[in-house]
């Protein structure tokens, strides 16, 4: 997987972060992501992220669940093994609604969790590169993707002038299975990557 260079700027205040995001974007830099300790309202708009399609996927999983339940039960109770239960008709729709509902919820929930993990590139035994450990504590960490032409020193100075309290340059894998355990790249050997 291709390695990319990132310039990382850390901010300690939401109120400083927002104008900085705006300035960085208008200056033509590509923001890879902003890592925050908590969900910041409006940051997705400021970053210009498109709306997630996770809920559309959820809807599709949901109706798949409903259809699965309905087709399975109706086949079992009307074709495969019809039973007389309390004198009810074989096609006893009201009795099936709870099961249809449960399978709808189950399919939607499990499907959306898996899709979410896929979209976020999360899986068991996958190691993610942390740009700054304090992103889970009290720092807003803005990560900017560099191109061949990016002057990292200029960019670091630019971030500092916009209120960044800490800046550095890091190299990390970008894309699917970002930073996974590779045979040739064990985590304890990763030190030079962070330092670079």
């Amino acid at each position: 997987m291709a390695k990319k260079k990132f310039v990382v700027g850390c901010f300690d205040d939401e109120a400083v972060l927002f104008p900085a995001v705006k300035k960085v974007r208008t200056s033509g830099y590509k923001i890879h992501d902003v890592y925050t300790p908590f969900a910041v309202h409006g940051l997705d708009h400021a970053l210009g992220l498109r709306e997630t399609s996770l809920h559309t996927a959820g809807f599709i999983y949901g109706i798949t669940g409903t259809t699965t339940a309905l087709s399975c039960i109706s086949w079992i109770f009307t074709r495969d093994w019809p039973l007389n239960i309390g004198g009810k008709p074989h096609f006893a729709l009201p009795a099936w609604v709870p099961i249809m509902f449960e399978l709808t919820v189950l399919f939607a929930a499990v499907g959306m969790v898996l899709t979410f993990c896929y979209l976020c590139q999360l899986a068991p035994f996958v190691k993610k590169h942390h740009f700054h450990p304090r992103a889970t504590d009290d720092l807003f960490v803005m990560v900017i993707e560099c191109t061949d032409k990016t002057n990292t020193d200029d960019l670091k100075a630019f971030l500092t002038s916009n209120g960044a309290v800490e800046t550095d340059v890091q190299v990390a894998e970008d894309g699917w299975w970002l930073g996974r355990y590779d045979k040739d790249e064990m985590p304890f050997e990763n030190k030079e990557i962070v330092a670079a």
Partner: protein
Amino acid sequence: MASIKTQFEIPGKMKTWSYALIGVGLVALIAGLVIKGFSSDEHEQTIFWGTLMYNTIFWTLVCNASMFFICVTTLAMGGWQQSFRRIPEAISTMVPIFGAITFAVLIYVVVGHKHHIYHWLDSEAVANDPILKGKAGFLNPVFFIVWTTLTIGLWSILGWRMRQISSEADEAPMDAEKGASYIWRNTIRAALFTVWFALTVGSTIPWLWMMSIDAHWYSTMYSWYTFASSFVSGMSLVALWVIYLKNKGYLELTSQEHLHDIGKFMFAFSIFWTYLWFSQYMLIWYANIPEETVYFKHRVQGPYKGIFFLNLIINFLCPLLILMKRSAKRNYTLVTFMAVLIIFGHWIDFYQMIMGSLSKEHVTLGWLDFGILSLFVGMMILGVGKALTKKPLVPKYHPFLKESVIHQV
């Protein structure tokens, strides 16, 4: 905030429309009274009073749902509703008026000994009926009148006290200490209303006013079902007023974000209503005990079949499929359409709940029903419009107002 229009003025068109609706309604009411109310046929009289009952009860509960909305959001320390809270407040001013009309109708039915409506009024029948005898402690005229008086009286008084304290947010800026004590006093008053609401709408009142029409039958879901019905229509009514005022250029602090949350309430409580509808139906369908199925017999297999399933389509399928998408809840036109549809759907629901028990052989939905509906819609528009002019539309010194302004979904 000087540029924001906070003083509502009733447009001439709204006045004309509401007077026209009230006029049509009054004509229908008088015609109904002459043709059906004074008819020598007991059944016609029952239909007339039943029509008045479900309309009065429906509109009182719907307007009361607005006050419930204010109280629960206050208890939950909600901030987002502040920018439009004067609208549910104005809607809740209709509770004393519609409550008084409901009271008059119900008292007439009980004192006038309309035992074709409330079978338990017939003391001879009760004496020979072990089931009704067992319920006599609850279903008797004295308890009915006392509890109805208490209910409507306390809804009006506790609601009035909530609106009273809301006006304090118009007077002067509050510092942290004053704001905290203001919120605390709000919490106390909201809690009182909510507790009384739970004891009435959440349990006893639907049993007493509506379920006791089928005096032998009972369902433990019934009160929650009625509450869900009235609350989802109440939220739809709030949505309609918010959109109307936005269209007229008021409520600049209220945006799509707030509409989105109101839309969520409409969506979620439509599902909640369906959950109760289904739970009530399925248990009775499954057990198939004659004492219980008597309620559904003429509704599912009899003349009310069409209305019964139309009810489910309007109140479940439409909100589920149309309001599910985020963009739909943020679309003013779509929310307006759905709000009208939901209010109509739950009005039909109340129709089949009461008239389905009073007129089992024939569906009587006709000019009288729509006439009385127009009377209540007209009164509601005029009353809420007038109440809106009496207070600024924005509680500008409310401690949580800023939370509402920056609200984002």
